[in-house]
């Protein structure tokens, strides 16, 4: 899997008084099976860049290609299908739904794909076992620990078996032990061939041996 950005620019509120150029002619290639870290201060544009790679919104100009497919320019209905297939997200706050139990949170991305409830449960349990939290499957999301919450978020990102994992400041709210545990899981995912992009300025992430490449981003521009 190859991620390729060509002259990607993202401008918020274009043409208005509060116009912000978050990304400025970004060129970036991420080879398949690599673990890359985007490092930058708050407001540097790293989350925007991650959102463009993840096709959350299109760039203002330029192209974002994934496996040779110009995902960023697909009409919404097709984009959604491809995003489900290609990309798994891990968010800074994990964005776990407190109303649902652990298993339902993990299997949530399978709902719109049309997979049967039995198959959803089977896949969800397999992942929960892999991350050693199967015993918490019926617990509400607000009844489990921070570390377990983090593993639920990772399991949810992996439930569709996407080749690309995007993580936005995943260790920002975690203590040292949990951050190290997170990087251990991420290293394992890299070993099985996943392409991983993490935004972070946490040394526990950027200095981790599994991270092959660190790209600095400042004022919407890359400094390799």
């Amino acid at each position: 899997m190859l991620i390729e950005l060509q002259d990607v620019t993202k401008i918020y509120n274009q043409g208005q008084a509060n116009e912000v150029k978050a990304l400025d002619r970004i060129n970036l290639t991420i080879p398949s099976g690599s673990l890359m870290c985007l490092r930058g201060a708050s407001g540097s544009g790293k989350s925007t860049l991650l959102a463009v790679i993840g096709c959350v919104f299109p760039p203002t100009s330029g192209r974002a290609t994934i496996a040779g497919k110009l995902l960023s320019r697909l009409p919404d209905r097709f984009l959604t299908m491809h995003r489900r297939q290609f990309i798994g997200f891990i968010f800074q706050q994990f964005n776990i739904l407190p109303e649902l139990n652990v298993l339902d949170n993990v299997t949530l991305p399978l709902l719109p794909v049309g997979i049967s409830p039995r198959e959803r449960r089977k896949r969800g349990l397999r992942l929960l076992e892999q991350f050693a939290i199967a015993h918490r499957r019926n617990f509400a999301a607000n009844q489990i620990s921070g570390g377990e919450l983090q593993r639920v978020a990772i399991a949810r990102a992996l439930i569709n078996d996407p080749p690309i994992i995007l993580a936005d400041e995943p260790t920002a709210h975690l203590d040292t032990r949990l951050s190290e545990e997170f990087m251990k899981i991420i290293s394992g995912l890299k070993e099985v061939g996943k392409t991983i992009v993490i935004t972070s300025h946490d040394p526990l992430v950027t200095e981790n041996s599994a991270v092959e490449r660190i790209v600095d981003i400042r004022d919407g521009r890359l400094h390799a």
Partner: protein
Amino acid sequence: MFLNSWSLALTLCSAIVFILTAIAARTAVRVLRFWDPASDDTRQIGLESETWLASTLVEYGLGFQIISLVLFALAANHFCSFLTGAMCATGALKANAYGMPTLLIKLAGVFVYGFWIVLHRLDISSESYPLVRLKYGYLVLLLPLLVGDISLQSLYIAHLKPDIVTSCCAVVFSKTASDGHNLLGSFSQASVLQSFYGTATGLAALGLFLHKRWQASLAWLYAGAWAWFLGLSLVAVIAVFSSYIYAMPFHHCPFCILKPEYSYIGFALYGTLLPAAFFGMAGAMIDPLRHRPGLAASVPNFQKMALGVSLFLLVVFVTLTSYHLLLYRLLGGES
């Protein structure tokens, strides 16, 4: 002008459709001037998002204009109760010079607007916007028809005068009338029926053949046959079938069958005939698009669906039209 709920609803809805389409027309001009799928610049990316919204607005607007034909017929039926001399929608439509042209332009609109919607649906079935230029070029071409449709309808409503005596359908659709109002002419029932059932049988046979093996030349023949059958069916309903529905040999009105006294059967007749003719023609119309990138699967799928719908509705329409006729011929009168 009649300030009643029907005229206000029709005028208000037309105004909304006009505004939606006018917004989309601006996008249409920009697409025709600047659309370049190979470009990665801000304008192209912006246009891709813009066309998505504009096309949705147009689809809903044109979809409503198609439905407005039904509303217009219902409104005309309602107006007849206020107009001197009018017994049904015929009198209401003949009450001024704009009624019949409005009806005709709305009938044409079913096909013209419907075809835009088909193009749009095919376009959004592909990942690569293959028909954006074509559908927006077509939109620009159909805008005069839409403006004409809305203008004629507004003029019709504005010029309705309750104190002016209008014609009754018994006069307009009488075989013996010779005052220039006769819309029927003189048709032989036997030849109309022979042509009607002959064409219907031919259409069914050709449709079944196309269903097994699609051929572009035969699809065009099928489309042409549907255009002929549409006109022929309207004549057949007026000249033959209507009098069996009314159980009155000299009553040939195509609008009275829309009334509750006749169980609104007219809506079932026209509601099957018009979509059947549209889908019968649409399959061939889109055939040249088969080889465009991204449409290799969706065009044949649509053609198959359109063929199936047209055949099914053909059977329903022929059954509905023949019901009263057969009842008389087999049982010797109404049961």
